[in-house]
């Protein structure tokens, strides 16, 4: 009443954006380079931060060239960190707007938007006797969160990267090896070629007995899932994907964003999230790979296709769709 049409929080945000009760935000306090194209971002989360479990990721909203973009990154700091800060580690991917911004241009002091950490790629309550971490490239980031968080008696890691200098956290990994807390095999794919999953027998003879966490490109994870399934130990394999799986495209259609009052033509292969953002519609978004459900939006009319499975969803009252992995399958109406 005192501040209508604004809320008191609109004024408090001017002075205390990280206070309890505010929308969850964080402040970048430092950016440490890890490799030529990766950096660790130290974030002071707002008071509402509920803390993470090792291996989880967090959605962050960063303003790049004035445009707010949301992405998901694994938390790489241990849960025991005392100073209230958390870190994410980001690898700049070619043409990646957010990753390149964070690695090369982000400045300490910048406010970013945060979501509570989430994800089920986590360690179990009961400590397994033997652990295998199978990682490649930036797939090491959630695993680093685990390594820093919990010590196991017997931990083996097989990590792939193009060259030695591309291995993120290399120094820290090697000091763990020196302390006999980790056995590490580095596969340098520029010289050794891609890791053939069958080589695991030779690298880690007891791999099938190990509780395994795997994270990396789709090729590695698909091969691992097949391999573990073939040996009847699929239950011991936990995977985390950074990209959506198979893409199935169909015919497109006219997409209407009824709240905003915009209608645009969409092909059958472009996610509705991208279509909406291009049209200037305020689209919620998150992981952009179909796992976090940060982008769900009511489908009011028409039909959409799930780009991962080709499955068609038709509008019914209460139907929500994930816009980041759904494309138009004929004309449709999205409530945004």
């Amino acid at each position, binding site marked *: *009443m005192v501040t*209508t*049409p604004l809320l008191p929080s609109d004024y408090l945000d*001017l002075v205390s954006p990280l206070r309890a009760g505010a929308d969850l935000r964080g402040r970048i306090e430092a950016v440490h380079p890890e490799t030529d194209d990766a950096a660790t971002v130290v974030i002071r989360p707002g008071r509402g931060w509920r803390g993470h479990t090792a291996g989880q990721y967090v959605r962050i909203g960063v*303003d790049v060239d*004035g*445009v*707010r*973009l949301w992405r998901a990154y694994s938390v790489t700091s241990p849960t025991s960190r005392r100073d209230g800060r958390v870190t994410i580690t980001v690898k700049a991917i070619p043409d990646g707007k957010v990753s390149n911004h964070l690695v090369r241009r982000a400045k300490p002091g910048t406010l970013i938007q945060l979501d509570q950490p989430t994800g089920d790629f986590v360690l179990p309550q009961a400590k397994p006797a033997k652990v295998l971490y199978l990682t490649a490239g930036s797939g090491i980031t959630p695993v680093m969160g685990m390594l820093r968080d919990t010590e196991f008696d017997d931990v083996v890691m097989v990590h792939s990267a193009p060259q030695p200098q591309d291995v993120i956290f290399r120094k820290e990994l090697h000091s763990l090896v020196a302390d006999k807390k980790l056995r590490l095999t580095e596969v340098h794919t520029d010289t050794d070629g891609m890791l053939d999953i069958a080589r695991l027998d030779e690298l880690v003879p007891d791999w099938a007995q190990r509780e395994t966490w795997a994270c990396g490109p789709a090729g590695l994870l698909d091969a691992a899932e097949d391999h573990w399934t073939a040996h009847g130990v699929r239950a011991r394999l936990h995977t985390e994907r950074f990209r959506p799986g198979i893409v199935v495209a169909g015919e497109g259609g006219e997409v209407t964003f009824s709240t905003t009052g915009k209608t645009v033509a969409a092909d059958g292969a472009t996610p509705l999230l991208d279509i909406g953002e291009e049209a*200037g519609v305020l689209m919620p978004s998150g992981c952009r790979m179909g796992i976090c459900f940060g982008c769900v939006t009511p489908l009011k009319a028409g039909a959409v296709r799930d780009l991962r499975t080709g499955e068609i969803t038709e509008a019914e009252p209460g139907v929500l769709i994930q816009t980041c992995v759904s494309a138009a399958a004929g004309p449709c109406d999205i409530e945004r």
Partner: protein
Amino acid sequence: MTAIDPTAHLTAEQIEELGRELDAIRDEVIADRGEKDAAYIRRVISAQRKLELVSRGVLLFSIFPPAWLIGTAGLSVAKIMDNMEIGHNILHGQWDWMRDPKIHSTTWEWDHVSPSDQWKHSHNELHHTYTNVIGKDNDLGYGIMRVDEDQKWHPFHLGQPLWNFLNACFFEYGIAAYDLELGKNLHKRRRKNPEFRARARAVGRKIRKQVLKDYVIHPLLSGPSFLTTLAATFTANLVRNLWTHSVIMCGHFPEGVQVFERRSIRGETRGQWYLRQMMGSANISGSKAMHFMTGNLSHQIEHHLFPDLPSNRYAEVAVKVRALFEKYELEYVTGPLPKQVFSAWHKVFRLSLPNKRPKTGTPDREQNLIAA
């Protein structure tokens, strides 16, 4: 108001070429839009909120005349900033590209009695599409005045200088009534239309909140300064109303601005739409501070050509647009604020009387368009 069509010398091909050149100006700004623009609007919003807080704080002691003066001045400026550079422009979608849900045309609400969604409909969809088309654009005299010879005279128009003055004093209520299309909807049959009733209730709620805040809660918080704070918020609203009314009158009413027949926009091309916006709007010249306080509506011509470009870019766009006016030998209507306000008021007085010789539409332009 001249009977001669000022665009008659342009061929259809030239009009389309003009449209392409304007598209290019727009594309250039969009390609360059970025971090600096985002920082600009956030800075303005932050400054406005701080100014409003401080002014209302000072008004708690409004019983002391200097406090009353400073607080009232500050609150007036804060309200003008809220309505003009911030509210009007955000509600146009000028900042939607930032994808910030707090600064977005679909979520913004302003310090004004007309709820933003109703204003967006009557302003963005009707006025900006049908700019200066008689019978289509209700902004043309707001339905209570006659601002062109081509509009039919009625004895009611004798009083229009008075109507205009009252509208200026209570402009935000005028706009709310206008957004509700009260004139049309108060007829017996329409009054019961559930859609109209829902919108009327929304306006009622908004008015209640605004009035409660400005005329009850803040005066009460001021304790012994109750009456003086009440006078201060009333004055601030009055100043805001008079100012915004003056600025907005300068956009389409001054002499030299063209109006169009309903028939003339049938089958209008992009180039012709642009041309109508160019001929149907007028600018105000002046200092940076003046442009800011008008919410850059002093660049009305540029705003009508590109209603969704960020307002901080209109000044640079104006240079290029003006060059196009010269190239195509069109009249760029502009002038200092007092001159334009006088010109608009002069028209309001002049047209309160019937024309000596009724004019027969704008046949030249119409023929031109049919030929096109």
